[in-house]
């Protein structure tokens, strides 16, 4: 049973992201403690709790997917703080600009993911292979693009393909040496640890698929 990617889906995606971030908070904290400053889980949890609070307080329901994503962007950038706040703020803001529609079709779904990746790249100036969020978002976008070219796949199913690629991308950061962000201070010692930003990115994409009833 899959659902269309409409405003209700977008809201469900955001709420599910908050639930998942809270559930995996300690895991993210531990990953970030190994190669960062240990606050990624806590900061994201605080941010997505604030997002949910703002969703609950809305008087008028949003009419487009983009409105939901913009609310996430503005909340995250003012509550998460640090690099993650700026990176996710930019990702959601970019995504909100290409989703000013009530329902996403296949190309709109790919467009959302592409815009999120563009935002992360624009803000962080990282490339694939530098042990960052890009290593989850980039394979997700590529996989969704390829899948969109195959007949018969629905938008929700593109998200499943993207989530699997994002998760594989996060796992694949283990052996990489960080050259961007806080972890780059560790140089060679960053190898053997999974990048917390890539993990939280994969979590977000997975939540998008799950909210559509398919992942």
């Amino acid at each position, binding site marked *: 049973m899959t659902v269309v990617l409409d405003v209700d889906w977008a809201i469900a995606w955001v709420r599910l992201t908050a639930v998942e971030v809270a559930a995996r908070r300690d895991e993210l904290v531990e990953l970030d403690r190994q190669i960062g400053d240990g606050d990624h889980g806590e900061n994201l949890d605080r941010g997505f709790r604030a997002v949910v609070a703002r969703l609950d307080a809305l008087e008028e329901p949003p009419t487009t997917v983009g409105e939901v994503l913009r609310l996430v962007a*503005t909340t995250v*950038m*003012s*509550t998460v*703080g*640090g*690099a993650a*706040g*700026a*990176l996710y*703020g*930019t990702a959601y*803001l970019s995504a909100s600009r290409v989703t000013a529609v009530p329902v996403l079709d296949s190309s709109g779904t790919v467009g959302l993911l592409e815009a999120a990746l563009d935002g992360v790249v624009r*803000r*962080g100036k990282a490339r694939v292979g530098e042990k960052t969020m890009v290593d989850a978002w980039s394979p997700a976008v590529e996989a969704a693009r390829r899948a969109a070219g195959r007949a018969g796949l629905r938008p929700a199913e593109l998200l499943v393909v993207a989530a699997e690629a994002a998760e594989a991308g996060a796992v694949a950061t283990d052996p990489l040496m960080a050259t961007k*962000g*806080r972890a780059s201070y560790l140089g060679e010692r960053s190898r053997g640890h999974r990048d917390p930003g890539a993990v939280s990115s994969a979590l977000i994409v997975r939540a998008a698929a799950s909210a559509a009833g398919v992942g």
Partner: protein
Amino acid sequence: MSDTGPGRAPDVALVLVTHSATLARGCAEVAEQMAPDVRILAVGGNPDGGIGTDTEAVRAALVQVIAEGLGAVVLTDLGSAVMAAELAVELLAPEAAARVRVVDGPFVEGAVAAAVAAQIGAALDEVAEAARGLAAVARPPDGPANPTPDGPASSPPDGPAVHSAAVTLRNPLGLHARPAAVLARMVAGFDAEVRVNGVNAASMLELMKLGASGGRELTVTATGPAAEQAVGAVVAAISAGFGEA
């Protein structure tokens, strides 16, 4: 174009974005001492007041200075502060964003150099250049258009008259930041192109790069309508030890 005459407030504000409110405020204090008329906003710390950055606070600061009719040069301390600043600019309307420059430069030196450039009436891009620590900012935009020769006594026979004088630095620390700022501001007030040991005396950073310490003899040269007065004023300030000796 800026009017650098007395009573005219600078057109460019500084927004200092750091991971700590104390750091931002402290840097602002140093810069304000050198550039008392420049609007300097300190934005430090995360939304909870802890260590971090706050995009919304940066955006609010930018909206505020733009509403005051100013341009803004943003200086940042570490990586995520740059991101927060760039995102804050992205959130502005395009016409507002066009009046902001986010600069990646040395934080304290850049802030002071930018503040001094703004104080003497430099335009937005010139203040940004000063903040990057690159440049010889700091001719006021409506200053003489023709560059002066580089060294003393190198003007062609028919060129502008060069006024020149030698003077010994009296204060023990020499041309450190505060005296350099004092000189740069003083020089900007004269209709003259002034050089100290061959560098542009309107650029605080150029003066500091001389590394001139106490006891060193400096050569002050100037061209332009107020060259003689400018040399006299600079020599007097140096001779007086900037009130430090």
